[in-house]
């Protein structure tokens, strides 16, 4: 299998924490950001020495990478190109939140021009809603007008790959409200839309407000109604539903493909598998790595990585991060060598997030991913290598077979000679299905 490698760089800074956010981020002044950038460049250098392959995607995520000073970003980008072999056509994304690019048009323009000149070719904007009241409630610092302005300027400057994030099921929001938001986002014709239902995470202001009964979570029934209607709207508007929460614009007009529906599941054939010509060219290449058990190097505070069957995670303590790098050490805090079962299991549950699902071939390849280097040979026998991919799959997951078939009988999961995939209805209860394979 041709395994790609991506680079994820984390920026744990935000102007202000959103009310629903449980990610690692905080407000920091210029001197902290500078120290961080210096440490990060050192980390890039150290990590670059350990990796000799090519980088096919780069993703600046956060937090809010766009609040980093452009001069620092440019230094970081240079450090990456100096220490890694970045493919010329690499997808390079930055999360640029509306409102953080600048208040004045002039500033937004200057920042975006700088991004382009550094080689950044994809913008991901945390729009979340196009309703100013709801934006305020979410704790966002921008308005719907900012979004329209920032997207317009980006277009003028030639950004031709833009993702907009949308959150639905905000407390108090109806299905109609959510669809209105989606319409307004579609009107901007972004190449990519990520669409999440709001989850109340422990430790967030929203969670506390819900505990105190000040806001109430949207009931599951309503949330699912919204989800499926948004899918319908997006597909009708030409967006391929290619992952549970992700949509990418098709080149042609007409209704875009998506997860197979429970009713026409049996008729669905292998034609629609990954790489087929009904795939949008705007799928997020970087995020797709996560769902295909490809490699990614994670750099920055609290970042995670996966390299040849080894998962690792950086410290999430800023002091420690800076100190470790000052000592010329990588700030990796945790490292776990996957067993053959870990690999196949991760390949299956992440793969099931995609509309094409997981093929037996991919699952089998994952199973043997690090049988040479992990010291876990014991659970891979010679007999396994002789098995056909689908036989191997059935053997590894023999205990779950019955239950998987029950899901299939209910039209929630498709199992055919190629592999397994969720139906659109199966997505709603996908945790239950995925848990059969861990």
């Amino acid at each position, binding site marked *: 299998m041709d395994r790609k490698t991506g680079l*994820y760089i984390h920026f744990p800074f935000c102007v202000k924490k959103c009310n629903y956010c449980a990610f690692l981020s905080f407000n920091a002044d210029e001197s902290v950001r500078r120290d961080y950038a210096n440490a990060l460049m050192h980390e890039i250098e150290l990590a670059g020495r350990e990796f000799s392959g090519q980088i096919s995607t780069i993703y600046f995520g956060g937090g809010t990478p766009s609040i980093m000073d452009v001069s620092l970003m440019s230094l970081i980008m240079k450090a990456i190109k100096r220490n890694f072999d970045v493919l010329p056509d690499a997808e390079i994304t930055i999360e640029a939140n509306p409102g953080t690019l600048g208040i004045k048009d002039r500033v937004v323009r200057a920042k975006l021009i700088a991004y382009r000149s550094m080689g950044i070719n994809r913008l991901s904007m945390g729009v979340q809603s196009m309703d100013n009241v709801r934006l305020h409630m979410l704790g966002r610092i921008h308005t719907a007008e900012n979004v329209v302005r920032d997207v317009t300027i980006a277009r003028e400057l030639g950004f031709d790959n833009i993702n907009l994030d949308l959150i639905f099921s905000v407390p108090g929001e109806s299905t109609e409200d959510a669809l209105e938001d989606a319409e307004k986002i579609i009107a901007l014709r972004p190449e990519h839309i990520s669409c*999440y*239902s709001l*989850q109340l995470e422990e430790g967030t202001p929203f969670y506390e407000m819900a505990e105190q009964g000040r806001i109430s979570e949207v009931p*599951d*029934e309503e*949330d*699912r109604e919204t989800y499926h209607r948004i899918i319908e709207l997006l597909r009708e508007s030409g967006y391929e539903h290619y992952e*549970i*929460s992700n949509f990418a614009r098709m080149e042609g007009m007409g209704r875009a493909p998506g997860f197979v529906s429970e009713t026409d599941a049996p008729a669905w054939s292998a034609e629609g598998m990954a790489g087929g010509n009904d795939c949008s060219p705007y799928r997020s290449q970087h*995020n797709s790595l*996560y*769902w295909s058990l490809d490699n*990614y190097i*994670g750099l920055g505070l*609290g*970042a*995670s*990585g*996966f390299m040849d069957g080894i*998962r690792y*995670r950086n410290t999430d303590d800023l002091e420690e991060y800076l100190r470790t790098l000052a000592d010329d050490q990588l700030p990796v805090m945790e490292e*776990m060598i996957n067993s053959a079962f870990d690999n196949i*299991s*991760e390949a299956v*549950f*992440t793969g099931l*997030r995609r509309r094409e699902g997981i093929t037996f071939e991919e699952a089998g390849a994952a199973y043997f991913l690090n049988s040479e280097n992990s010291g876990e040979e014991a659970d891979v026998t010679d007999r396994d290598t002789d098995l056909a991919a689908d036989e191997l799959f059935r053997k590894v997951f023999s205990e779950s077979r019955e239950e998987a078939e029950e899901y299939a009988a*209910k039209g929630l999961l498709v199992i055919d000679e190629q592999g397994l995939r969720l139906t659109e209805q199966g*997505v*709603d*209860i*996908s*945790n*239950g299905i*995925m*848990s*059969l394979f*861990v």
Partner: protein
Amino acid sequence: MSYLDNIRNFSIIAHIDHGKSTLADRLIEKTGLVDKRDMKEQYLDNMDIERERGITIKLQTTRLSYKAKDGQEYILNLIDTPGHVDFNYEVSRSLAACDGAVLVVDATQGVEAQTLANVYLALDEDLEILPVLNKMDLDSARPDDARAEIEDIIGLDASEAPEISAKTGMGIDEMLEKLVETIPAPQGDPDGRLKALIFDSYYDSYKGVVIYTRIFDGRVKKGDTIRMMNTGKNYEVTEVGYCIPGTVPADELKAGEVGYICGSIKQVADARVGDTITLASAPTDAPLKGYKKAQSMVYCGIFPAEGEKYENVKDALEKLQVNDAAFNFEPENSAALGYGFRCGFLGLLHMDVITERLAREFDLDVITTLPSVVYKVVMKDGTVLDIQNPSNLPNPVDIAHIEEPIVKADIMTPNEFVGSIMSLCQNRRGNMIHMEYLTKTRVQLHYEMPLNEVIYDFFDALKSRTRGYASLDYEFLRYQPAKLVKLDILLNRELIDALSTIVPEEEAMAKGRGICEKLKDIIPRHQFEVPIQAAIGQKIIARETVRAYRKDVLAKCYGGDVSRKKKLLEKQKAGKKRMRQFGTVTVPQEAFTEVLKLDDGR
């Protein structure tokens, strides 16, 4: 001067948490006959469960050596006692093996319910009691108050009670000196006929049952044929010795001494606590008084969980029984849970310990059903049935009346909580006998209460209403007629026999409603609606519905999330393992034990 003059046989008695085990450890460290290094493994390494809960379940008996200020070397036999009301009988037999007891009172807490209960047990055995004040290293120690309480409540002279800290070792020497002085030497005739008390035993896979014994008269050595006077069984002695701790062989044990006897005995039930050992060739005329067969007070069903083998559970229960004469079980068949076992315990703690050991030591997934007491069901034809499984309750039309066990419950509390305890006991059908002020601020309440009301979560409720200050002691009193009915629970219109309970008629409605509400929270959402109903006979008295779920999906899963998401899925999978399938409804194991814990601290 006889060798007996240099022996002291004693126990340490205390309320839970007052520092009994710490003191025992300290004594062994100071005067024990084993290396400190070995001691760690041999003595301190009790069962995990004991350590976590801070209670002693299995006895530890230890021989200590102390050189007193009078220049004499004394053998001190420390006979440990279990620290919980469930094991009152064992406590009393341990005490019967002693000539005195060290009463440990926490100087920060004063006298508690179990302090009293244990003192009374010790007084019943005619023991000399040496009070000591523990935890004197703490700033919150108030020795004068504790001393006054000992004198006022128990009536012991505490003016010279040693002030110690078992934790730091402070005052231990003074205490030992006082112990030798206060506690009398044992009496007995080494040349008389053998009369020895079994106060504990355990199963050893090499030696068979190891009996802990106190010799009152006569002597015993390897090769003797001994007889258990109550069970009438004879065994040839293969080894005798001292517990130092562990087992160290000796030539013989004689009157006044404490030690162990082995005789190729296959299970502890053949060497029952309280039984008298004598020689088959020259038996003593009468056994020691006080022998009782352990009686189960609380029963529950234990069933293999989904995917667990019946045989594995059976093997584990058998292994536990070999070592625990108070635990018994028999096969049971439940329509809902399949084949399993009905198990009898001394009390709730005993039950908790056994079920936890099944999980920890045997790595078994089991489902425990609601605990139940033994009801006496008097039939119209005059026969009396013992019913401990609600499902076996005969048809109500054939029943004349039902009797339930009543306990005498003594609750000791600071006076500020009296009102709240009284309302709790009232709710639990308690009948107050009287109330007394032990001191200005400490009150003892005496109640008669159905055991059934005590076994669920009474202790937790008591603790939560009194911020942990109240203490409880109870013992069986009598059987008493009561108006009781069987309350059934139906899931998705199917009767789940393992959830049936016997409840007072006037409370059936409230209990039914409570159980349905509780189950609604416990039973996970399914892909369809699950009605939960409570019924008496054919009549539905309460109903709740678990709504169908529509959503179980994680919206995001990016790089860092993969591990987190995987843990979540693994947890979900493990959770499912602990559930049980009834038709199409999946019920988590906790439903069977949590469902009757209806007290929310109101």
